[in-house]
């Protein structure tokens, strides 16, 4: 039979392809240490996917690779293997797998894992990512937007507001770079961002606004920590934005046509 190709696994594969520029720059700059972290993270996630496949017949997804990449890149350093594994497990199981796997989750598993690690072990230092990685986020976003697997409106909304804040001097360069990386890795996820068109613009703008708020008002926080916190709050707000937009859309149709 004839079939299209936009099923869950193809979308996950295209997302991985979009992240490749960032991954290559990151591995090139950080070396074997980063590769080991990525491998370990992927292993822990794979084990949990296997467990859920065997116990709940939940098909494993290639999206695990994108989550592994985001966690390995952004997780606090020097946690030790046990605490890192605990954080990854919490994020992947509670953030994604218990909801039924990728596509049914409310928050990005990497966002949950990173928040868990960040708030659970506040003494661990957040990584400082070099500028080339942030620049590599631009082609990643372009690939994602051109193929339609990343919501272009989310990225555009965030870029507009963050650009305005930077021009007003509210957003410094470190927060801007970390914000850009987290925007591409966590916020522009097709599943956990808003799914209606106006909702997506607000979603992106909200992320950038929270980023600016935390950057100006949260003393002593690392740039990545700020961005991850903003991403967590944004993805929690996304369903609310969608609900409001849909209610407005339905009300407008009802006013125009007398029925829906």
């Amino acid at each position, binding site marked *: 039979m004839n079939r299209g190709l*936009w099923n869950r*696994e193809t979308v996950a594969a295209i997302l991985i392809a979009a992240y490749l520029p960032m991954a290559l720059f990151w591995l090139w700059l950080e070396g074997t240490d980063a590769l080991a972290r990525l491998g370990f993270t992927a292993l822990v996630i794979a084990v949990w996917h296997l467990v859920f496949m065997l116990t709940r017949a939940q098909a494993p997804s290639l999206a695990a690779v994108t989550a592994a990449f985001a966690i390995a890149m952004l997780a606090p350093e020097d946690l030790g293997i046990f605490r890192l594994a605990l954080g990854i497990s919490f994020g992947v199981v509670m953030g994604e797998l218990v909801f039924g796997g*990728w596509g049914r989750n409310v928050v990005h598993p990497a966002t949950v894992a990173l928040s868990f690690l960040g708030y659970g072990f506040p003494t661990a230092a957040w990584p400082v990512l070099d500028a080339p990685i942030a620049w590599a986020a631009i082609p990643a976003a372009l690939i994602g937007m051109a193929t339609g697997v990343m919501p272009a409106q989310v990225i555009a909304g965030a870029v507009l507001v963050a650009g305005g804040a930077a021009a007003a001097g509210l957003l410094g360069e470190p927060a801007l770079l970390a914000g850009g990386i987290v925007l591409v890795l966590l916020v522009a996820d097709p599943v956990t961002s808003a799914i209606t068109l106006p909702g997506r613009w607000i979603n992106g703008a909200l992320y950038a606004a929270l980023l600016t708020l935390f950057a100006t008002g949260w003393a002593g926080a690392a740039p990545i920590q700020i961005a991850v916190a903003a991403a967590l709050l944004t993805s929690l707000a996304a369903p609310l934005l969608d609900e409001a937009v*849909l209610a407005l859309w339905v009300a407008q149709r009802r006013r125009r046509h007398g029925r829906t």
Partner: protein
Amino acid sequence: MRGGCCAQQALAHVIGGQMQILGSGTGLNPDFPSPPVTPGIQDVVTEEAAVAAPEGSELKVTTLVKEGDPVAQGAAVACLRHAPDVCFVAPFAGRVARISLLAGKKLSEIVLFREASDAVETHDVTGTKTDAGLRHLMQSAGLWPLLRRRPFGGLPYPSEKPAAIVVMATDTRPFAPDPQIALEGREDDFARGLAALAQLTEGPVLVCQQADAPVLAPPKGDNKFRCVTCGPRHPQGLAGLPIHQLFPAGLDAPVWDIHAEDTAALGALLKTGVLPMTRLVSIAGQALREAQLLRTHPGADLRQLTQRIVLPGPHLLMTGSPLDGHPARWLAPRDRQVTALPRETAQNRPHWFIAALTRSAGKTPAIPTAALTQSFGAGLPAIPFLHALSAGDDETALSLGILSLLEEDVALADYVLSENGQITAQLRAMLDRIKTEFAA
């Protein structure tokens, strides 16, 4: 009726004669392999034909003929049991070969053999100036099955007054024949048919057409006709999106749709008393040596139509387009396309381990992508709609406008997500559930 009145005002206000429903670039044109079309249009009347119920509908009928009876072209062979005015007619003059009914006298198919005879049923066209007379003519001449109602699909009820009628002078399905060619030289019939349709409704008659191939000039002054310009990409050329955008169907506001060629047939019926049976049909698909455009009749034998042009090897004949067609032996009453595809054989099934990983598990969810948004022409919130469908959330689906949609409108989303008919089946199940709920 306040709602209907508001809708009319809004329609007249927003649009003023000519309107565009969506951005011209929205939608998708999926590319299916098919050999090039052989130029020229020939007339084909097949040796066998069947009068069959439209796919998915269950119609209780009374047969009006017996096996072995001779029938004239356009003669009624069956009528609806609870609405004896609505008839199904023979597409050519011949003999009844086989009548097969399902349990409960539901129509399966009535097969006819063609015979060399030019007997044609002529209908009395006096009295069609009145609504009742026009309806009676359309129902008894076999034009009724060419109409379709929304919500829920199927034949319109015999005495139902539509809130609006949509005439489709465009078709964006892959390989669909161009309605413009079908209407060539039949402009008078088309205009007469449109006028008759306007007589059936108190609401507007929306004529959907392409910007570069108009069949109706934007009407001047205040009349019932509205031109709707549809974009070139699927699914903009289906009736579902214009209805959803401009005049949503409701439980007490049915909207009918009819193809422009059938409207011209109605015009010819009103003039001559004889319903023209031929229609423009395209034959395409991967399993063919050449694609063709021809004029044939409803219920035509797909095997005979494709016999000389199909490639060797197992193949599957479908009535309808590659997106929303059904495997069948006969051309369905409203279809204008025949698709021949290679039959899936054991070699191209996936490896058993891949199948175990992907198929035995629960269904994987749809991921929001630009492709999915475009598969509804960006005209409605695609993801919330699909979520409501898969979760069985009737209320949300109703508020998102499911009553304006039918299977063919979600077929593209089904294709894009490579769901193999899941979404179509979910939509049908939900429509059936809503129907029984509100009928009670």
